[in-house]
C-alpha cells in the first residue's frame, strides 16, 4: 500500500486499466504531455503513447461525441472534461446519445464510456470552475453518476466506471484532489457502482453526504461526538445515480433523524430525491423533520464569498442539532 492523493489514485486506476485492456483510451484537453490540468493523467502518455492518451482540440462536444462513436465501436473511452462547468457544451451528446444508445437500439449498441470532470468549489477558482451540478446527469436516464469522496474509493470507483457497460459520469471534487492522502493498494481494487458506504457508525442521527462534502460532514460528526456525545451515522452515497437507498433508509429507521448535505443548489437538488426516498422508506420511523444543508439556490459566488455558500462544518452541526432538538 502506498499513500496517495486522489490525483495519484485516479492516475493509478487509469494506468492499471490501460495496462490490462487496450480498448481503454483516454481523450481530453491537455491530458497528454501536460498530464491534464490537475495532473490526473500525468505521464500516461509516456507509457501508452499519444494514440491512447489523446489530446483533443478545444471541443467538448467532439470529445464526448467521439467517445460515443468509439464506445459503439467497442472501445472503452475515458473522456476528461477540464471542468464540469464546460460539460454543458457536450450535454446533448450525453443526453441525446450516450444515455440512449443502448435503450434506443434495444441493447444492440452500447456506450461503455466514462466522462470524468472536476466539480465543486473550495479551491478559489474563477467562474464556471466551481459548480456542483451532478443532478443534470443524475436526472438523465441511461447515465450513471458517481462522485467519490477520497483517494481510495476514487480509484476503486473509477475502475468500476471504466469497466461498466454503460456511460458513467464521474465527478471528481477539486477540493479533494490533493486535500489528503490515503493508503491505496497497488493491487487491483474496485467498488461497485450503485452502493452507498457507511462512513461512520452512529445511533443518534443519520447524515447523508457525498463527494467533497463528506469531510466537513465527518468533521461535524466528530464535533457532535466530542462536544455533545452525539453519535451521528454518516452515509457516503458514492453513486448519485442509480441511487441506492436501502443503506440510508435502514440507517434512518435506526436513528429516526436525518440531515442531507450537498454542495449543489437546494431546490430540485439531489437532496430532494434523497429526502423523498427517506420519506418513502422510513416515514414512520422519523422523529423530526429532515434537514437539508446545501448550497443556496444561486450561481456559486466568485470565490471571495464561496466559503459562505458551501456547507460548512458549523452549518452541518447546527442542522444536526436542530433535528435532535425536535
Amino acid at each position, binding site marked *: 500500500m502506498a499513500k496517495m492523493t486522489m490525483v495519484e489514485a485516479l492516475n493509478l486506476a487509469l494506468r492499471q486499466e490501460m495496462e490490462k485492456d487496450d480498448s481503454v483510451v483516454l481523450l481530453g484537453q491537455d491530458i497528454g504531455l501536460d498530464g491534464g490540468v490537475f495532473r490526473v493523467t500525468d505521464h500516461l502518455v509516456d507509457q501508452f503513447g499519444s494514440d491512447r492518451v489523446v489530446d483533443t482540440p478545444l471541443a467538448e462536444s467532439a470529445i464526448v461525441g467521439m467517445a460515443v462513436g468509439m464506445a459503439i465501436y467497442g472501445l472503452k473511452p475515458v473522456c476528461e472534461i477540464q*471542468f464540469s462547468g464546460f460539460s454543458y457544451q457536450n450535454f446533448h451528446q450525453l443526453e441525446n446519445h450516450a444515455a440512449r444508445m443502448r435503450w434506443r437500439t434495444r441493447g444492440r449498441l452500447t456506450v461503455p464510456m466514462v466522462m470524468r470532470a472536476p466539480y465543486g468549489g473550495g479551491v478559489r477558482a474563477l467562474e464556471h*470552475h466551481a459548480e456542483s451540478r451532478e443532478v443534470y446527469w443524475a436526472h438523465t436516464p441511461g447515465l450513471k453518476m458517481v462522485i467519490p469522496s477520497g483517494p481510495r474509493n476514487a480509484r476503486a470507483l473509477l475502475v468500476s466506471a471504466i469497466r461498466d457497460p454503460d456511460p458513467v459520469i464521474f465527478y471528481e471534487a477539486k477540493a479533494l484532489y490533493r486535500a489528503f*492522502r490515503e493508503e491505496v493498494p497497488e493491487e487491483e481494487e474496485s467498488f461497485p457502482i450503485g452502493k452507498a458506504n457507511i462512513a461512520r457508525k452512529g445511533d443518534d442521527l443519520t447524515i447523508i453526504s457525498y463527494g467533497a462534502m463528506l469531510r466537513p460532514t465527518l468533521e461535524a460528526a466528530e464535533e457532535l461526538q466530542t462536544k455533545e456525545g452525539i453519535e451521528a451515522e454518516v452515509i457516503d452515497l458514492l453513486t448519485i445515480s442509480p441511487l441506492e437507498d436501502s443503506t440510508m433508509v435502514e440507517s434512518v429507521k435506526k436513528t429516526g433523524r436525518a440531515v442531507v448535505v450537498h454542495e449543489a443548489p437546494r431546490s430540485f437538488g439531489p437532496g430532494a430525491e434523497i429526502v423523498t426516498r427517506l420519506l418513502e422508506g422510513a416515514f414512520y420511523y422519523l422523529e423530526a423533520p429532515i434537514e437539508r444543508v446545501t448550497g443556496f439556490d444561486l450561481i456559486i459566488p466568485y470565490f471571495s464569498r464561496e466559503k459562505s455558500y458551501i456547507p460548512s462544518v458549523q452549518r452541518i452541526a447546527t442542522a444536526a442539532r436542530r433535528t435532535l432538538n425536535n
Partner: protein
Amino acid sequence: MVMGDMEMNTDLLVIGSGPGGYGAAFRAADLGLDVIMVDPFSRPGGNCLHKGCIPSKTFLHLAELILDAQNAKKMGISFSKPKLDVTAMRAWKNQVIDSIADGLVTLAKRRGILIVKGTARFESSKRVRLSGADISRIRFKHGIIATGSKPLELPGVAFSKESRIMDPASALSLPDIPKSLLVVGGGYVGLELGSVYATLGSQVTLVESDARLLAQVDADLVQPVQQRLSRLFADILFEVQVDSMHEHDTGVDVSLKQDSKIEQRCFDRVLIAIGRQPNSGNLGLENTGVTLNNQGFIMINNQQQTSDDHLFAIGDVAGGLMLAHKATREGRVAAEVIAGITSSFDARAIPAVVYTDPQISWCGLTEQQATAEDIPYTVQRFPWKYSGRAQTMGMTDGFTKLLTDRQDGRILGVGITGRNAEGLISEAALAIEMGALAEDLALTIHPHPTLSETEAEAAEIFQGSPTHTMPPKSST
C-alpha cells in the same frame, strides 16, 4: 495547475528536509502519522548533504589521501605529484551526494511521506502557503520547523553566484583551485575548507578576529591543529578583521585591519566562514504563536515545543549546537512527542568533530565550561606519542584527555585530537550517557594496537597505573 488553489491536509508538516527534518518525518511516519515534508530541494538531505558536511568530507578525504602520500616519503614510499582533475572531483562529489539523496527519497517514499518541493510560509499556526509547488496550501495538525541555518555574511559583502567572494556552499562547488585564497573565520568550516584548498594547491591565508582558532574548543586540543595548519597555510593572522573588500576582474582587494593598522592584500578568491544564522525570517512566523530569541532562534522546551501549541522546532533554527546529529535527535524527539510518546531531549553528551588534519573531537564537559561554571573535575591526558598505533601511522601529534568527577571518577567529558578522532569519540559519548566511571573505561579491554587504547590509558592514568606511560606522581 490552471485554475484554483489546491489545499492539502496532513497530520504533520515538516518544513525543511535536512537531517533534522527527515529524522522527524521518518520517525513520525513510523509512528503512524501522515507526514508531508516541504523543502526547496526536491530531495532530502538539506545543507548537510547537499552543501555542507557530505561534500566537504568528500573533499577532505581526497585531501587526506594527498597528505598521506606526502607523509609516506619519510616512511620510504614516494609518490609523484598528484594530478588533479577538478571536473572529475566535482563529479565524484555529486555521485556521493546523489547516492545518499536517492536513498533518502526511497526511504521517504516507502514510509509514505510526501515530499513537496517548494517554499512554505505560515498563514496561521495550522496552515502554510506554498510557492513553487503544485499544492497551494497545506493544513496540518502539527508542524515541525526544521529550516536550519544559513551562513552569516560580512557586513556589506553579499554572496552571489559567480562571485570570487564565496560562502561555504559555493566553495564546495569547487569552481576552480585559486592560486591564493583568503579564508575569513577560524571556525571549523574555515579550517576544513582552508585545508582542502591548501592541500589542492592554493596559497591559503586565514584571518581570525579572535586570538586563536576554534574559540569554543579547549585550547590544548586545538594546539596540534594550529601547529599543523601554520605549516599548511601560507599565513594565519589573529586578531585581524576584514575592513573592506572589493571584487574586480582578476581578484579581490581586501583591506585587513589589526588594531589601527590597515594592510591591503589581493587574493584570487575569498571564503567567508564566520558562522551561521537561523533561517527563521521570511517563514511567516509572525502569523503563529512562535517566539524567537534576540538572535532569531526559535524558543523551545525540552520536548522541542515552541510557544505555539501546534508548532515544534528542531535543529539549527532552534539554537544550540548546529550539528546534524543533534538535529536528527531533536527531530525524533519532536515526532515522538507529537505522536503522544513521552519523550525529551536529554542528551548528556553531544559529540562534535572537526575534520582537520589532525582531527579534533569532543563530547560532554569541556575544560572551558568547567572553568567558566566552576565545576570541579580532574583531567588526564594521554599523549599519542606513547601510542603504538599512532607511531605506526606517523601520527603522534595528538592526545586523548579525560575529564572526570574528582570524587567518584565518573566520566564528565572527553576530548581527542589526532588521526581518526571522529571514530574514537563515540565510545566516550556512550560512556558519558551510561554514567560510566573512569574505572569502567580502564577495565574495558581495548584492542592493541589501536588508537582507542588511548582512551583506556587516559582512564588508567586516573586509576593511577597506566601501562604505556608512567603513573602520575601524585593525584591532581
